[in-house]
């Protein structure tokens, strides 16, 4: 049995799964149930000057039969009284001392407000602070949330204020609503943040009700840009995480990964790209805290199969496999092969290749089943046919190198090697 416990800057948790700052972590009753279910830690929903929320707050993107592929919210930070939150945090820490308790903060934009808030949070016995520099709706209109995270200099200034006061680890949560997360990440690391977390939600319009013509969520006939998350954002989050893990400055601090993590596989992927812990929200909002069981069991079984004794044996292991395009090997060549014994003759590979790719699949008409074969000489090895094939392992991409040696584009050009003639 592998050891899946995490130690994040001294913040210990029995597993790397934390609940992200969001409705599931906004009150004691929820957090206690989450801890009872087995969650390793929580990031308490953002505290700040108390706000008022609107009604109709969430909307989702469904895809075919799958509900909530993407999730969107226009809810602000905690709308509960600050003192009540602080009292409940203290109680939760006392009842579950072995779980990570991180408190998300978004103080007003002045040094004193931040210092005052940090003192109050540290007084609860919480283990860490997460700075919410990412909320892309509502709070940003007031100069907070993503308005801070989008400007590296403002972010640097706030982190400097925070580090003057904080005695427990500080995690800065980055907004993805930027061309690159690295400039702000660098600024806050240089300002002394102990760690980073990413991504916060992405500004979005999830869709429009085609009867009312008003986008969702509908607040009395109007909507507002919301924060998008859930499985749909995972690839974007993984890319942003990679840039943080590869940058010499930002890679100096540990990262808590966030963005559409629903399964242990998602978690493993974030960790392979550098995250020490992961934060989950949408999946728990959709299915409840019970998903923690499979998150832990799945990760554990995979680690056993791969021979990883602790999570530190694989954190960051895939970071260096992502290189620049220019460094990819042009001599590496793969060709699709359709296993005729497994083929169910749906024709999806054919039409995808014919209309969408390189016209490399041959169709031989049959009644009622057609036969599809790959034209080896036309196949560019793009994967499209394999991606659309509904049958597991029916299409394989077999290696047929163009040359034995490694050859990248720079070298290819230098040698004046030929380009395609058709």
């Amino acid at each position, binding site marked *: 049995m592998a050891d899946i416990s995490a130690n994040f800057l001294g913040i210990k948790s029995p597993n790397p799964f934390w609940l992200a700052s969001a409705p599931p972590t906004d009150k004691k009753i929820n957090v206690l149930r989450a801890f009872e279910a087995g969650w390793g830690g929580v990031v308490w929903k953002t505290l700040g000057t108390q706000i008022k929320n609107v009604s109709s707050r969430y909307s989702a993107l469904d895809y075919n039969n799958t509900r909530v592929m993407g999730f969107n919210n226009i809810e602000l930070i905690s709308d509960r009284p600050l003192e009540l939150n602080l009292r409940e945090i203290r109680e939760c820490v006392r009842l579950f001392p072995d779980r990570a308790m991180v408190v998300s903060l978004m103080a007003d934009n002045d040094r004193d407000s931040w210092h005052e808030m940090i003192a109050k949070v540290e007084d609860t016995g919480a283990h860490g602070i997460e700075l919410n520099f990412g909320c892309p709706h509502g709070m940003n209109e007031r100069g907070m949330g993503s308005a801070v995270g989008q400007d590296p200099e403002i972010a640097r200034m706030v982190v400097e204020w925070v580090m003057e006061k904080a005695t427990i680890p500080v995690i800065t949560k980055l907004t993805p609503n930027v061309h690159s997360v690295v400039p702000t990440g660098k600024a806050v690391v240089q300002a002394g943040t102990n760690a980073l977390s990413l991504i916060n939600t992405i500004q979005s319009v999830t869709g429009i009700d085609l009867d009312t013509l008003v986008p969702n969520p509908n607040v009395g006939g109007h909507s507002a840009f919301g924060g998008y998350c859930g499985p749909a954002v995972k690839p974007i989050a993984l890319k942003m995480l990679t840039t943080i893990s590869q940058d010499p400055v930002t890679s100096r601090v540990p990262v808590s990964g966030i963005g559409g993590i629903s399964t242990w596989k998602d978690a493993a992927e974030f960790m392979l790209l550098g995250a020490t812990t992961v934060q989950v929200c949408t999946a728990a909002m959709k299915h409840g805290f019970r998903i923690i069981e499979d998150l832990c069991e799945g990760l554990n079984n995979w680690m056993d199969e791969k021979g990883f004794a602790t999570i530190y044996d694989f954190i960051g292991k895939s970071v260096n496999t992502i290189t620049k395009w220019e460094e990819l090997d042009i001599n590496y060549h793969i060709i699709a092969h359709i296993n005729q014994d497994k083929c169910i003759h749906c*024709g999806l590979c054919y039409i995808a290749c014919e209309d969408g790719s390189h016209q490399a699949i041959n*169709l031989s008409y049959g009644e*009622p089943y057609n036969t599809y074969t790959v034209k080896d000489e036309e196949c560019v090895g793009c994967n499209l046919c394999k991606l659309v094939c509904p049958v597991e392992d029916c299409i394989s991409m077999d290696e047929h190198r163009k040359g034995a040696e490694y050859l990248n584009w720079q070298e290819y050009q230098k040698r004046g090697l030929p380009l395609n003639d058709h």
Partner: protein
Amino acid sequence: MAIVNNRLTAEEYAAQFRDIHPPFENREAALVEANRCLFCYDAPCIKSCPTGINVPKFIKQIATDNVKGSAHTIFISNIMGGGCSKVCPVEKLCEGSCVYNLLHEPPIPIAKLQRYATEKAISGQWKLFERKASRGKKVAIIGAGPAGLSCAHVLSREGIDVTIFEKESKGGGLMTYGIAAYKVTPEFCEEEVNYITSLGGIEIRYQQELGKDISLSSLQQQYDAVFLGIGVGLARQLNIPGEELEGVVDAISFIYDIRSKGYPAVAVGDKVAVIGLGMTAIDAATQAKRLGAREVTIVYRRTQDEMPCTEAELDIAKLDGCRLRWLSAPQAIEGNNGKVSRLLCRVMQLGEPDASGRRSPVETAETFTLEVDMVIKAAGQTPFETLVNKEQLQHRQGKISINEHCATSLPGVFAGGDCVNGGKEVVDAVQAGKDGAAAIIEYLAGSGQ
């Protein structure tokens, strides 16, 4: 033992004849299945549909909430797509070729999805087609069955005025009169006919029988073209002793009575033998059971490997408690006081393949007797040979001969459906009607009329 009607209460009849394939309960249920469809390219289900309905397209349209578009996709290929969704033997057509079968997964419930879209269209009376401006051409169609209605719809869409002559008092043909009531209700059949004719330009004149009330030659004179969709109708005789006894009925009239007179009016025996194992035999056997017969035995000359009905149909009969006597050929029907009392059968064995390619039944020395009070003959139907002879149509054993343009031997007279092929599925007749319409349109254009 006696043959009596009115065996059940109204509630029992309703329960016995309720829809055997219920529709989707709601949109979500339909979408679960619609979204399973892989949207195959050059899909096997399309190729396996005699009318070539673009199945993946109409299913995709259900999945995108474009039900109107979905119904149009179905009806453009098969105007009886509503009825076909209830009566087609889909397990040997579209659903039978669904690629999911090759994955050993249940196929997409194409018929059920087709019903979902078409029922909404029919009950909502969606206007999905518009007639082109009238061309001033008139076509007479004989028979308001699937072939005739399908032909009429295509012609009318093209601006040709159609008059249908129907010998019965309702349209729909075998859909209305020849199929088990638990598959399709009389109300639905009527709605379907009304939906088809709601296009406009189609007049149906009922109780007009060819050779009796109307003659082909006069129609040829009055109309620019004639389409014959008169079907088949006569039950094949067994040619065994005792066929004249009281209690011997043919399956066609038995089913016709159920459909036209209502359940309580139709008498059924205590112990019933059904001879044959085609779709009609199944419909007769199961309905005899559902009308209150205590025992129903299906007698068939060959084995399950050679049976004409589908596996799914056989299952209905088995689930209804019908017994099967394989390799049994009726030899004689015996009676008391003119009423059926026994069916004598000979045990058969399989010999060499016959003309149909199936192994033929060969007599053995062994016989057995079934104590029965009713015998339903379902050994196939024969075409209206006397009628087509009288009208001087070229034919083969009563089946009207047509060329590749659906034209008969008489000028301006076209034909299609059961009267040409000897009896196939509803969906085949619909396609024959479309082919006939296309040929007539070409004929009318070419003849310069």
